[in-house]
């Protein structure tokens, strides 16, 4: 045998044995954690008023359908804050930070609504797991949605839909909804320090970007798990399942789903309005990349004209943000939000006539750019209405429907409104989002389906001496909350401003021709 081999072989063997020794020593010194997560029994005073499931297993997160992969609660200190993720993923953090997902659990409008609901019932706080499952999953999974707070808070819990909550998802049920997500938030996350993550990034990406997770979070199914909301007897007074939010199904049954245009394509496009316009021209190419802005329809949370009120409404500053950076990011996202809203709707005068002293006209309210109903979501608060004004040749108003009182914040009660109504067991409308009292959902006028339209017809008597030509001014307004909600729940003197989705002015030629 060659002498070089004879000389080196013992050292090679020694090296291998030393490495095995090192590995075994490391295993001994720092063994694998026991079953990750926290056992339900280890959360002091944790309340389970809803009893076990059909198999007799406890349901710690019920009435939310949220689950962890190993069925255990989370250890708050093991869940990374988005601010920690931002150390390496700054661009994604800056995209996400102004989004509604980031403030889902802290925005004051939401918080006040939850508090109002909690006060309705002895188990109100536990019932609020239904809300928090989607709005503040970290709070629910840590066991903090409990009348006795026996778990320490953490930054991640205050960040609403923080990075970890999406990037550990392994299962979603978009038809069940109510937060029907399973998160490998205990089992999937790595606990390496930042330099070690950079040295072994593949395991970090396996932890937060497993193929199964990446495929799931790129799908509409994933969004549907929270953007489908049904009330049942667990959290409301409904005796049969009431569909409160059907955004996923609206999309699933639409042209967009048939053409594989997903939620992410529009709401995560770098310029959502530009992408919607691109889709409207028939170009179905995917966005060049996906941003974490999740641009939606809540323009109020980006209204920097509200000044410090806006910071208050958004629940303060997120960890990792300064006031100036926060404002800068909000302004940018506010612009994208307003442009997206304006890309969604259209108005068209279909016909008009003046016969027997009656002016008749029809306006088509069109859903041109939304891949779901317009409006969508929980539309007892988010609602849309049409304002029409008919004027004579002198500009005198002859007919006005859908006026908005800027001082009192009230909309003409006779306006054509697209809204759903929560109703209590006596059939009375609940204007301020009291979920736990709701027995039934009715629609004043259901949302307009994607690529659909709603033809609204008006008829009004006209005096014989009206001088033409008549003009018709139309505005399609959108508002994120009702004024009753602002007064009753928020208890602040803030008129929630409406947002103009579309506007058009027409000359009613038919009326001119029939002028006496």
């Amino acid at each position, binding site marked *: 045998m060659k002498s070089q*081999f004879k000389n080196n*072989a013992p050292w090679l063997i020694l090296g291998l044995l030393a490495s095995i020794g090192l*590995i075994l020593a490391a295993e001994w010194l*720092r063994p694998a954690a026991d079953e990750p997560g926290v056992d339900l029994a280890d959360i002091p005073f944790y309340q389970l008023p809803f009893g076990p499931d059909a198999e007799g297993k406890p349901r710690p997160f019920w009435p939310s359908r949220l689950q962890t992969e190993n069925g255990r609660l989370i250890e708050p200190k093991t869940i990374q804050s988005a601010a920690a993720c931002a150390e390496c993923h700054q661009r994604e953090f800056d995209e996400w930070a102004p989004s509604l997902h980031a403030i889902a659990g802290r925005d004051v409008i939401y918080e006040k609504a939850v508090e109002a609901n909690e006060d309705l019932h002895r188990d109100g706080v536990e019932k609020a797991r239904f809300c928090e499952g989607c709005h503040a999953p970290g709070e629910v999974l840590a066991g903090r949605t409990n009348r006795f707070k026996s778990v320490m808070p953490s930054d991640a819990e205050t960040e609403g839909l923080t990075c970890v909550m999406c990037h550990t998802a392994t299962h979603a049920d978009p038809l069940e909804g109510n937060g029907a997500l399973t998160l490998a938030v205990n089992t999937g996350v790595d*606990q390496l320090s930042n330099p070690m993550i950079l040295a072994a990034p593949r395991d970090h990406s396996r932890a937060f970007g497993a193929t199964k997770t990446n495929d799931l979070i790129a799908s509409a199914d994933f969004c549907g798990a929270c953007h489908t909301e049904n009330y049942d007897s667990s959290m409301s007074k409904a005796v049969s399942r009431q569909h409160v939010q059907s955004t996923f199904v609206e999309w699933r049954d639409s042209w967009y789903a048939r053409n594989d245009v997903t939620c992410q394509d529009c709401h995560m496009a770098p310029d959502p309005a530009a992408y919607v316009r691109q889709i409207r021209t028939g170009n179905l190419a995917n966005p060049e990349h996906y941003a974490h802005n999740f641009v939606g329809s809540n323009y109020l949370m980006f209204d920097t004209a509200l000044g410090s009120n806006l910071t208050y409404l958004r629940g303060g500053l997120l960890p990792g943000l300064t006031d100036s950076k926060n404002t800068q990011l909000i302004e940018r996202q506010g612009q994208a939000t307003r442009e997206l809203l304006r890309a969604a709707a259209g108005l068209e005068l279909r016909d008009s006539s003046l016969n027997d002293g009656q002016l008749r006209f029809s306006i088509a309210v069109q859903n041109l750019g939304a891949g779901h109903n317009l409006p969508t979501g929980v539309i007892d608060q988010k609602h849309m209405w049409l304002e029409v004004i008919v004027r004579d040749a002198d500009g005198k108003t002859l007919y006005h429907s859908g006026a908005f009182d800027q001082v009192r914040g009230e909309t003409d009660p006779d306006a054509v409104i697209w809204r759903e109504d929560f109703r209590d067991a006596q059939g009375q409308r609940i204007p301020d989002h009291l979920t736990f009292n709701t027995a039934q959902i009715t629609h004043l006028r259901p949302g307009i389906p994607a690529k659909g339209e709603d033809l609204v017809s008006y008829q009004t008597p006209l005096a014989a001496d009206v001088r033409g030509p008549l003009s018709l001014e139309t505005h399609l307004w959108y508002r994120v909350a009702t004024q009753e909600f602002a007064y009753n729940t928020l208890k602040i003197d803030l008129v929630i401003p409406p947002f103009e989705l579309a506007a058009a002015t027409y000359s009613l030629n038919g009326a001119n021709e029939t002028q006496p």
Partner: protein
Amino acid sequence: MNAPLPLESTVRNAPATPTKSRTSLLISLLFAGLLGTGLHLEWLAGRNWNSGEIVLLAHLLLGLMFAALLAGWIGQHVRSGLRSSQRPAFTWLSWLLLGKCVLLLLGGVLMILPVALYLSGVIWFWSFETTELLAFLHLWAAYLAGIGLLAHLLLRHWRHATLTHKEAQA
């Protein structure tokens, strides 16, 4: 005719003494250690990163030592090796081994570049695809370098006496 075989020391141009420096033995030791820890990191560390972190740190430190030692030693070894190698196949296999080692070390250095930058205050890292490619190259260069090292240590670099005799007759 049974001609007596020449002793190894009489082979033409054979090195007077086989390469046996402490550095080369240390390099072998480190190589084996790196291979062992590297295989653990690749296949087993994911189930317990508590201990995997220690192994990863050791792998990085051993890797830096290995790179430094190899860089200081290889020049002289190549020069003496080229003088003493009598078999073109051995020479080419050795060049191949050197190439694999360069690939292995280059891959390793590129993989820890983000760590070095992070420690110096700069956040930068490879794209996921590049990370995958570097990890793939590092792993397979390690496998091939391991096989190459064994071949390098086991294969003759001198010609057999019979061949040398025939060449002399020719």
